């Protein structure tokens, strides 16, 4: 079912990792074989849901048993400035009778109930392992529902057992391409419209970017998907430029949008001060190449100069407090080197940084920044991480939620930097927030208290 699509995604020519592989390796695909009993991370369905759920005015309906939605709804930190329909959990909650009799009729009725109650512009239906295993034809049900109810009902065929979260994100992108993008011709197309792909508006990070774009007269048609409206996604093929911020997830979508509608794309990042400037410059250049007002380039340079100066000035006071502090950086999500460059600016040192998901180019940048290869770590088992922190080899761990308690139980300061984080770290403002957050954590008075042994343990 999903096989040909998955194979195609594995062979993505626009993927940097893929370009470095031999033909034979490329065919094997990029989903690392999972080791039973030693695996971590979400499934394909999880990835597809993360990618599409920030379409905030749509109903996101999960066709499966209770675990898939019941155990996960209202847990993702993607913000909306409008509808909050996307925050409700919708599921067919398949029971044993449904599994015996088939769940297609129940799904159809569920779609109808969702449309009648909530009148959404669209319904996304997510296939899961059990729905796929009992042979429910989600695509056919969606097609019938679309025809009879007059509301787009989009099948997302990414059941959990197909692969990793990252593959699911890409399958989510495929669903948009197959069923949504290009289905609406907007009447307000402008010469400076852009899309940002794989930006999920975690903690409202878009609000650290949108004001910059607005000052340049650039309109964000939509983030795919963050704080997104269905109608904007449907019309986003009219944008002049696509920026991809997390290449693993949606580069295929960007390439196909280029093939189909001639939209040039680039991979960039809004994490880090120089990265943000670079991204803005590239957007301006590509827009001008596609007919936007040439003064945009000079205006961008002016904005970049002003914002960089402001950001560095805001960070400078932290130098005295943070210089010499040692950081262990363990992340897959945020580009490691952009965090490194910001924290080096205030004099912090790196005792280690993970390069699990980094490309060769990322690794070269880390080399340039730190001047030493030994800080690069591929895998750091939790036991070893605990030892490093307990023995004081680092003053701070920056990582995702998964390793939070390794740091805290070792009584070591910890700053969260993955997608579940509670502060927005993007744009110029975001890097200042990050440095401030590091300072707040390191200077908290609890550390001295919790490390001190109980009085009766003094020998």
């Amino acid at each position: 079912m999903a096989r040909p699509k998955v194979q195609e995604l594995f062979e993505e020519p626009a993927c940097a990792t893929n370009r470095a592989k031999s033909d034979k390796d490329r065919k094997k695909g990029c989903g690392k074989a999972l080791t039973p009993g030693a695996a971590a991370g979400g499934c394909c369905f999880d990835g597809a849901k993360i990618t599409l759920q920030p379409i905030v005015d749509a109903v996101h309906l999960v066709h499966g048993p209770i675990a898939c939605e019941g155990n996960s709804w209202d847990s993702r930190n993607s913000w909306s400035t409008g509808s909050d329909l996307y925050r409700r959990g919708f599921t067919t909650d398949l029971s044993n009778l449904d599994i015996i009799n088939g769940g297609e009729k129940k799904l159809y009725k569920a779609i109808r109930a969702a449309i009648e109650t909530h009148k959404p512009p669209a319904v996304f239906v997510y296939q899961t392992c059990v729905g796929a295993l009992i042979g429910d034809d989600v695509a056919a049900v969606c097609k019938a529902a679309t025809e009879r109810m007059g509301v787009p009902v989009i099948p997302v065929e990414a059941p959990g057992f197909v692969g990793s979260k990252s593959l699911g994100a890409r399958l989510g992108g495929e669903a948009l391409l197959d069923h949504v993008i290009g289905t609406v011709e907007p009447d307000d197309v402008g010469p400076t419209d852009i899309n940002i792909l794989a930006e999920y508006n975690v903690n409202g990070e878009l609000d650290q970017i949108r004001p910059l774009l607005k000052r340049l007269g650039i309109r964000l048609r939509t983030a795919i998907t963050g704080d997104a409206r269905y109608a904007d996604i449907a019309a986003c093929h009219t944008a002049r430029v696509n920026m991809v911020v997390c290449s693993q997830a949606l580069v295929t979508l960007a390439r196909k949008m280029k093939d189909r509608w001639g939209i040039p794309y680039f991979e960039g990042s809004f994490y880090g001060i120089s990265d943000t400037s670079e991204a803005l410059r590239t957007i301006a250049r590509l827009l001008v190449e596609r007919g936007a007002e040439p003064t945009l380039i000079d205006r961008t340079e002016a904005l970049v100069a002003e914002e960089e100066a402001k950001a560095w000035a805001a960070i400078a006071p932290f130098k005295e407090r943070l210089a010499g502090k040692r950081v262990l950086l363990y992340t897959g999500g945020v580009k490691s080197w952009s965090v490194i460059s910001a924290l080096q600016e205030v004099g912090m040192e790196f005792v280690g940084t993970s390069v699990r998901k980094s490309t060769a180019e990322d690794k070269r940048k880390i080399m340039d920044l730190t001047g030493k290869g030994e800080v690069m770590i591929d895998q750091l088992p939790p036991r070893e991480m605990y030892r490093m922190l307990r023995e004081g080899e680092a003053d701070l761990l920056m990582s995702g939620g998964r390793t939070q308690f390794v740091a805290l139980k070792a009584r070591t300061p910890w700053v969260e930097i993955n997608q579940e984080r509670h502060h927005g770290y993007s744009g110029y403002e975001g890097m200042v927030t990050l440095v401030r957050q590091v300072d707040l954590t390191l200077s908290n008075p609890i550390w001295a208290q919790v490390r001190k042994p109980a009085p009766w343990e003094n020998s």
Partner: protein
Amino acid sequence: MARVVASAKPLSTSPLKLSAPLGAAMAFMGMDGSMPLFHGSQGCTAFALVMLVRHFREAIPLQTTAMNEVSTILGGMENVEEALLNIAKRAKPKVIGLISTALTATRGEDVGGDLKLILARHKELADTKVVYVSAPDFEGSLEMGWGKACAALVKALAEPIHGREPSPKVNLLPGVHLTPGDIEHLKELVEAFGLEPVVLPDLSGSLDGHVPDAYVPTTLGGTTVEQARSMGDARLTVAIGEHMRITAEALHAKTGVPYVVFDRLTGLEPVDRLMVCLSTVAGKPVPAKLKRARSQLVDAMLDGHFFFGGRSFAVAGEPDFLWTTAKLIGDMGGQLAAAVTTTAAPFLADLPCDRVEIGDFEDLEDQMLEAGGVDLVIANANARQLCQRHGTPLFRAGFPIFDRLGAAHQVTVGYRGTRDLIFQLGNILMEHAGHEPAMTLAPPVPLSEQSHGTAAQAG
């Protein structure tokens, strides 16, 4: 008397139900040196793991057999085998809880049979107790999964003593609706009578938020295998919650230890029953400090009843949670205006309300609207959206509570726990003077008559 009705709708909106495997995994968290293992795709584990981490704010050991498309078609025995071997090698657990999910149960795998073959051919698994539980997502909910896992643990581990007098021990079988704090308090109550409590599963040892001195990949603390084995050497088994009945029965069948199932241990009358029970088993009078605690609860009821009388409540949760909470509200003179649960439980027919619906938060919202609004909602954190919409205060209880600190330390059992719960609820009711229900002019309906439909007449 209440009618227990199943919501017949095809679409579950804002689910209340949680998956049974999640409940089973939580039970294994209460075993010392334990590692639960979901036999399913990696997403099943990831969702459950994230939810447990958010609630307990602790590292959670939970692994997956990482089923993929191929093993889903050909069978998952090899995945189970590989997972068990990997976990035994890396984490060296004393107990592995092997839990089937909807994916493998839909396939119809004979996991029990497979497990026998695997254990027979791997000597390296001899030191690990592998306990298998079938708790597919499509049947039952959190409490059912927990209950099934506890019964499986007792069947696998407990041993009878032959011919000699049992020790002054009491087995405690707490339901999943009790927190680590509750369990800790129950142990103190049992000890106060000079009896030794043996708890299965004992979350108060493992998920009570302690800071260990070394990194441990499994649970640290909880019921040891030796303790579970010794459960035959007890004078009495006390099970708390109807969903623990199957475990008490299984323990009785295996060891002959008599048992008593308490429907709840929150409220004056049920705690009195517990005191009489323990006093009889110990052959000792109720200790003075517990008599004083009883007196404090009586005083709390006297002080608190002003704020409960005539106020209306909406409660949603698993059957035993709903029963415990709703009965206390009734004890204090409050009215149960809306009640929703997750699975069919006949005993809920004795609740003092018109109907109990098996449904979701949308059903709770509908019932609240029918009642003309309520003064307080008691449910897990997923009720926050609906409470925000209606401006109704929410008292977070049950599982999961992901947006508050200290969920594991809430104590609501015993005289002291009931006293504190009355204070907490009373304070909210005092602060929120309350909505004006449509039927304010009608006299309050006595509890004994509510079940006959007089509430409807009053409007």
